[in-house]
């Protein structure tokens, strides 16, 4: 333990409260996903459907597509990131 470590004391151990909160947040996240019926398979199918629709209007980069579920305090958000090369039907 260096001087800094000596000054700040030993690293804080995770309390049982912190553990409970972490486990609970993760559990609730998964519960909500299950209730929304978004298993990994369905998520992949959704991603494909989305790309099919977007591909009608844009030329897209299929390898760079990312779909994730993100959670904030209130709700889980579905975030899709689909890189676009160019608008379809445009001259260049």
């Amino acid at each position, binding site marked *: 333990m260096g001087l800094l470590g000596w000054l700040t004391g030993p690293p804080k151990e995770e*309390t049982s*409260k912190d553990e*409970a*909160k972490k*486990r609970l947040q993760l559990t*609730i996240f998964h*519960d909500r996903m299950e*209730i929304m019926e978004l298993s990994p398979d369905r998520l992949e199918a959704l991603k494909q459907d989305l790309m099919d629709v977007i591909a009608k209007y844009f030329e897209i980069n299929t390898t760079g597509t990312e779909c994730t579920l993100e959670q904030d*305090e209130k709700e889980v958000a579905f975030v899709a990131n689909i890189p676009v090369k160019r608008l379809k039907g445009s001259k260049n």
Partner: protein
Amino acid sequence: MVGKTILFTSGKGGVGKTTCTANIAAALAAQDHTMNICMIDMDIGLRNLDIQFGLENRIVYNLVDVVEGTCKIKQALVRDKRLPNLCLLPSAQTRDKSAVNPEQMIELIDELRTQFDLILIDCPAGIEQGFHNSAAAADEAIIITLAEMSAVRDADRIIGILESYPRKINCWLVINRLNPGMVKTNDMMGVDDVIEILGIRLLGVVPEDKRIIIATNKGEPLSLNNENDWAGQAFRNIAKRLTGEELPLMDIFGENQNIFLKQLKKLKALIKFK
């Protein structure tokens, strides 16, 4: 008169739905004698709200009798011994949750709305028919939870189900049986942790208090006892907030205590000890 309907629910059993319903109802009735309040025990087959008020020997008819038309609403209502503006519609003890359906409950509560200012519904545990019967006519919901993992998880589920109802139901949170000592030593989630996870507005925090059990033994809600007690005061504060009063949370952690006073108390304790 168009009475408001408030649902007391939790998902998980044993977190204190009935205790909270009884104590908040009693506090509301005691703080305003002109407010007519009706409690409905929706736990068909497992009747318990009557016990909280010592009314178990006064029940003649019940909720199922009213719904099936065996008697009139008025015949089934049991008036509290102490508070004439507080009534109980007891649940049936010999039937089960399927004895009534949500449509019948909406009809019954619409009738009660013409006679009462406030209708408080004590919901059974679970998310099955008993829950849907209870939530069918609710305008607002008070979600009771403990600062424990399973209770919070189930509360989240209940909030999700209520949010999926086509009718908007305002959700409020009550954290029951909080142990301030355990929160201080980081062995129990605190008020902020639970709010962060559930994301609904807080209505109140009730500290753990053994006098709740004693009050039930006597059949008199603790909130009617005007002593400066922990849980009773917390319930009275919740009742005040429900009627629009803005009140800060009770100082259950002793944070606002004067430092000088604290030292004095310590000194006193020390002297006594010696």
